[in-house]
């Protein structure tokens, strides 16, 4: 029988190291902590990054555990289960805000709409469960990107500009995502279509892992103030709904 594979042992040690600390670690720190050559450590980290077990912060170059690793085992959440558990809160959000509500999860580089509640005004509307939204131009997508639930794989020709407000510059988008992480919610103001806006917040499952996003959307003049900023009252409603669903899913701290 063959002996243990050294590179797998080293990969395991790197994962343990990243899991132990609360902050991101740079390549030098990882290599010196484990007594590895920088080149060796870098090779392993790149491989781990490839399978999604490790993520690298684009601005600092530091490493942390990846979302795919957190998905291992218990965290997988069926989208129909997510809808079922969200039903009451999505209804309540639509009732209180007067706007249409959608839930999204990532699917192959886009946002899959898994639940849709009509705007409560009895106008003719069509269910769009099952449709796909762009990650970088929807509030649901931006939230999923910000919390590492979805990853963006921009095409050669760059991100598509749906309007002149769409964030297509990677630096600009990353700054927006960092702000979403900081605030705990995200918005899209005329970034997908002129005249429309949306607000979304993350839904967390066990251990705080973001499993989806819930948001409302409607005419920009109803969602935002005259300076184009989302109305704080609506933001609070979205965040309340997201927290209520997260509690329902077993997230304790949110």
């Amino acid at each position, binding site marked *: 029988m063959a002996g243990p594979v050294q590179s797998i042992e080293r990969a395991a040690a790197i994962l343990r190291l990243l899991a132990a600390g609360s902050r991101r670690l740079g390549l030098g720190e990882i290599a010196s902590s484990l007594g590895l050559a920088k080149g060796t450590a870098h090779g392993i980290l790149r491989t781990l990054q490839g399978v999604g077990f490790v993520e690298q912060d684009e601005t600092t170059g530091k490493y942390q555990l990846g979302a795919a690793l957190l998905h291992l085992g218990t965290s997988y959440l069926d989208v129909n*289960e997510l809808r079922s558990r969200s039903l*009451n809160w999505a209804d309540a959000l639509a009732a*209180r805000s007067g706007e249409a509500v959608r839930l999204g999860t990532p699917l192959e580089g886009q946002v899959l709409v898994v639940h849709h509640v009509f705007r409560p005004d009895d106008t003719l*509307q069509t269910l769009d469960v099952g449709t796909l939204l762009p990650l970088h131009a929807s509030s649901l997508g931006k939230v999923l990107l910000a919390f590492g639930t979805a990853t963006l794989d921009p095409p050669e020709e760059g991100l598509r500009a749906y309007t002149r407000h769409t964030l297509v510059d990677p630096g600009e988008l990353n700054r927006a995502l960092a702000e979403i992480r900081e605030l705990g919610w995200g918005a899209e103001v005329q970034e997908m279509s002129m005249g429309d806006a949306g607000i979304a917040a993350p839904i967390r499952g066990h251990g705080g892992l973001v499993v989806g996003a819930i948001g409302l959307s409607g005419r920009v003049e109803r969602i935002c103030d005259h300076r184009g900023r989302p109305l704080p009252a609506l933001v609070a409603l979205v965040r309340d709904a997201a927290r209520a669903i997260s509690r329902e899913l077993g997230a304790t701290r949110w």
Partner: protein
Amino acid sequence: MVERYVMSIDQGTTSTRCILFDHRGRLVSVAQREHRQYFPRPGWVEHDAMEIWRNVQRIVPEALAGVGADAAQIAAIGIANQRETTVLWDRRTGTPLGRAIVWQDTRTAPLVDALRDRPGDEFFLDRCGLPPSTYFSAPRIRWLFDHVEDLEKRARNGEVLFGTMESWLIWNLTGGVDGGLHISDPTNASRTMLVNIRTLTWDPELLDFFGVPRPLLPEIRSSAESYGEARALLPGVRIGAALGDQQAALFGQTCFSPGEAKCTYGTGSFLLMNTGTDLVHSRNGLLTTVAYKIFNQPTVYALEGPMAVTGSLVQWFRDRLGLISTAPEIETLARTVEDNGGCYIVPAFSGLFAPYWRSDARGVIVGLTSYITKGHLARAVLEATAWQTREVVDAVNADSGLTLKQLRVDGGMTSDNLLMQMLADVLDVPVVRPLVAETVSLGAAYAAGLAVGYWPDMEVLRRNWYRAGQWLPDMDPERRAYEYESWKRAVERSLGWIRPDDAARARRSGQ
């Protein structure tokens, strides 16, 4: 100003929920607890009434805490409950005399068969609007008298109280052994087979027939009126309504006009159509039932088509077959295939309810071939609910002389988008989900809120109703007809499985 809410307690078959609603009928807080299901023998289903009362004691404070409210902010309590489930308890100790016998329980089948022979369905239909069935409470009381020593004697001495779940909870909420109110409402009482459907009073002939002494029975009050104040849990808060869960859902969907109908998809599913103040006797296997009675206004009636096994088929698929780990995953599994692969499941676990009323039917899976996967079975599970609804809608249309224009749906299964689309497809009418899916709880809250003046009138309630989702028919008519025929052929194969002497054999080996 401090916000005030109406509290509903929905005592359901698998769980009890406490929900707070605000003035606009919006859900603001929920607490829920499941209770244990006892299956001591094939066909028997029981609940522990004490466990249910303990659950209520836990979820009421939880629901208040969810929105940071105290009892003073509760304008009224409304109760909705699983119907026909029978509990007897000791008037002096408050202890249930054995477990509650649940509506799904079929132990009374031999008695019911005998009643259908003699005096026959007409005798009962004339008086209580219901054909003899294992579904209703009176045969259960008779069964308990025949099987529990001294029970009948103690009942005649006035030592025992009977109730469905609303009576049990109201009695406990209003003081229990210490002067608790022993009351029921027409929607619940009319499902015992002991109430005259025209006068809505206990029918002496029926009481006599089943040998039920009057002191056992609760006083029948309106569905919405201030019954009295709670003394336990929420001291001083008025209890303003009691409605059977299905009638509560009809009320919560604001089906206040004749011809308006809803179907609630839960453990079982129940389609009710408002028929106004006219009592419509069904010729197509539906039940004539009380929709609601508000204060001293005229009684409003409904036609009802109950389907015994819908959501519980999904639960069976999850718990007994283990093919999915949560109920919503049935949709995920069903979507792995394009169609049912020719497979149909008729879930006649305890016979068939509307429109067949055949206690000799048992479940079948037909069309099995080596091609069938668990995905096809999952689809057949969901389709069983859709086709059962179609059969009830056909009967409702025939009896009422109206054609259903759209179906308002509610209940947990409405989160299943595939099922909702199937419904629109097989019914060929739009299927509409209201903004508040918890219509059972909402209906109880609405009735209680009306009783105490929290809401001024029913028109205000109607304006609270909004469409949250809609599914439109999208099925080739020929395929619809073909599938419907296949379903009916599958149903035929479920009939007559239980032989007349099977029940006797089971009884002999049982006790």
